[in-house]
């Protein structure tokens, strides 16, 4: 329910990496939210970052620069998550 149609969800497999990514993106004042990974994508208590399509270049650019690119990135289309990384 926290992910709207068109939003992006980045999944990290390390709590330390996702927290580091959240901290850095917040320092850059980018509009992201740390959320539990949607159940459709992960069954354990994984964490994910949610961001809007408009923020995608800035968010993923910053993560690449910091060496913090996520394991997987999904785009929500209707009820489905389309993997794009």
């Amino acid at each position, binding site marked *: *329910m*926290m992910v709207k149609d068109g939003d992006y969800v980045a999944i990290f497999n390390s709590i330390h990496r996702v*927290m580091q990514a959240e901290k850095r993106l917040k320092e850059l004042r980018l509009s992201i*939210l*740390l*959320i*539990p990974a949607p*159940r459709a994508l992960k069954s354990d*208590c994984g*964490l994910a970052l949610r961001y809007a399509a408009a923020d995608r270049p800035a968010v993923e650019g910053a993560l690449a620069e910091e060496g913090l690119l996520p394991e997987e990135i999904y785009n929500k289309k209707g009820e489905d998550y389309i993997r794009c990384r």
Partner: protein
Amino acid sequence: MKIVDCRNMTCPMPVVTVKRALEEASGESVKVLLDEGAPRENVARFAASRGFQVEEALEGEGYAMLISGASRESTSTQPEKGGQSVFLIASDCLGDGQEELGRLLMKNFIITLLDLSEIPERMLFLNRGIFLTTEGSEVIEALEKLANRGVEILSCGVCLDFFNRREKLCTGSVTNMFTIAESMLRAGSVIRL
């Protein structure tokens, strides 16, 4: 029949108002006047989730919704074994120890509630818990969505004043210790976080 006018109210106030009206009506039908869009959808979803029958009709520029039938779960506030649960949130952290982890866990817990079919009747925020309902909180969006499903979000007035955050309340309403204590005594279960 009781008539409740929820036109020109912003979410989640229509759901909160209808919930109170149904509690006061003690089983009698309630007619609700609503604006089109989210208020109408949220009230219909809330009433259906509580086992009420919902009939809708166009009325003027909005909708009239007749909510009737006995609720699956009692809407009365009488003590009831196995009744609805109340969450007492007395901190902005879940668990002791590392605050950074505690804050993250609390945020994730609240967001996760949105994916569950069972939700609490009320969430009572006190002490540092009020940092979750006031400006700067990252769970306002999630709490608003829970409120739209009928969860009552209440923050302790004394706590808001202590932290000078009464003007910064972003979701739910202000409550007092009388209501907090009464809610806990009347709940089927109280879950303290």
